[in-house]
């Protein structure tokens, strides 16, 4: 899907620019970092909107637990292009095993809350990479019941709030360091 590929590319480029701005002469430019963050956010929102459409279609077709989020996460991680079809229907044990595999291999450990290292805007790990910590959303939505409850990272949570206003992005925590 064009939109998702473009969205992913935009997010990756934004991240690259945010990271490289750390070494720029004159220090971190707040305006530029803010614009990059906003671009990442719109790209992420559009990416998930497109993903949700795909998921709904798949759910309607198959009426069984969908694997899209973990598929998406894995593919993001591995840099594979996303496929709109091909959702797998796995039995529970297989799914759990796969999730466990994913847990081990996906994200680097989250930095400690009280890290002594000063966090620049780009120092926080990018939020579209899945995190190990599972977070359950308070607001329930039909999606959530179906989707895996094991690995829901904050990034995915934001998109799952169908109709809710977008929560402040985790990456904005990096701005706090300025």
């Amino acid at each position, binding site marked *: 899907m064009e939109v998702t590929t473009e969205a992913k590319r*935009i997010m990756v480029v934004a991240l690259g620019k945010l990271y490289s701005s750390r070494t720029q002469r004159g220090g971190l430019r*707040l*305006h530029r970092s803010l614009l990059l963050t906003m671009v990442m956010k719109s790209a992420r929102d559009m990416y998930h909107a497109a993903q949700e459409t795909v998921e709904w279609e798949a759910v309607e077709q198959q009426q069984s637990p969908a694997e899209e989020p973990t598929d998406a996460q894995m593919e993001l991680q591995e840099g594979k292009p996303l496929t709109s079809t091909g959702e797998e229907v796995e039995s529970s044990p297989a799914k759990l095993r796969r999730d466990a595999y994913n847990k081990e291999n996906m994200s680097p450990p989250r930095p400690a809350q009280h890290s002594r290292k000063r966090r620049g805007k780009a120092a926080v790990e990018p939020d579209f990479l899945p995190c190990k910590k599972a977070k359950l959303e308070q607001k329930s939505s039909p999606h959530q019941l179906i989707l895996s409850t094991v690995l829901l990272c904050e990034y995915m949570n934001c998109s799952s709030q169908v109709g809710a206003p977008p929560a402040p992005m985790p990456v904005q925590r990096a701005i706090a360091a300025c």
Partner: protein
Amino acid sequence: MEEESDTRKINNSFLREHNYATEADIISTVEFNSSGELLATGDKGGRVVVFQREQESKSQPQRRGEYNVYSTFQSHEPEFDYLKSLEIEEKINKIKWLPQQNAAYFLLSTNDKTVKLWKISERDKRPEGYNLKDDDGRIRDPSTITSLRVPVLQPMDLMVEATARRVFSNAHMYHINSISVNSDYQTYISTDDLRVNLWNLEITDRSFNIVDIKPANMEELTEVITSAEFHPQQCHTFAYSSSKGSIRLCDMREAALCDKHCKYFEEPEDPSTRSFFSEIISSISDVKFSHNGRYLMTRDYLTVKVWDLQMENKPLETYQVHDYLRGKLCSLYENDCIFDKFECVWNGSDSVIMTGSYNNFFRMFDRNTKRDVTLEASRENSKPRAILKPRKVCVSGKRRKDEISVDSLDFSKKILHTTWHPHENIIAVAATNNLYIFQDKVN
């Protein structure tokens, strides 16, 4: 050390001759003074070069008031903030002239963190005939002094000296993007991403914060201030633009802290043009009051807008600068051009507005006739006395002769800074490290 400087000199001249620009020579701001007699440029290397217009002489009418270098000085040096482990660039972000009140000229120049007031004065006489020292400065042998003499002022070669009279520092946590002198000629504002500070020109150890948009929690930051300017006549009014495409007009008489605006100018976004980059291209890069104080002009990435101060919900006029770039935003985002901050400027009578573009093109829009023209600042087209030929960018498939296609545009050649003489049709255009001055043709 000497060897190093020699190497640098050799490298610089080699680069200049072969048309490469050293980064320090890139012009970062241009500004005419209020009479138009002087033109100041600031560059990335922290230097200020001031040009002065020649007196028009009857004996040489063809040399119609050309601008020559008057003074060059190092305004800012690179600094290091040890606390934050940050280098502070010496690049001059803005220069603003003060009105002339005596024989000397005064200007404010600023980098990311510090504003300085410079006095530029001429010395064309020097005292000669001291009693205790001779004209070379050597101490005279007291035994040779037999009579008393009064020193007399003798003419000497003109010397222009620049001295820093005030340094306004340590008031900005973020990067200063603009300065603006008040019409009271006693105060000025300096603006960074989140705050506007009011200074008295005489007092350097104190400034008043009049706008602060820093949120309590930086995670909630959604917009920054991109530029601010005082009203040209009302000393209590100023405007500031934001990265969200809005402008706020504030009245300093209402409260000490002007966080509450008295007017808010914003045009609702057209949903049909929404894209990934809508936020970036709607960020305002420059805001300028018209000379008569009735209008505001703003520049965002693709357009220039003229706002009537009495009408907040939409601009009075919108001019497309280079709409053919709308389909190329993704590439411009990848090569960083989408973050370029173009300035805009009014002519003296507020009838024409001008702004820069890519490929060393700059555009002028006549507000009355609604005609616009694209001109190019390049060495080939700018022989002395040559008339600039209008340029055209070809947007559709069929390219006519002399037109340039969008894909052939050179995005490394951008005109970000321009200025217009306050009374006459003379413009100064900065194209990377070159300054072009264009005048109306002589009849």
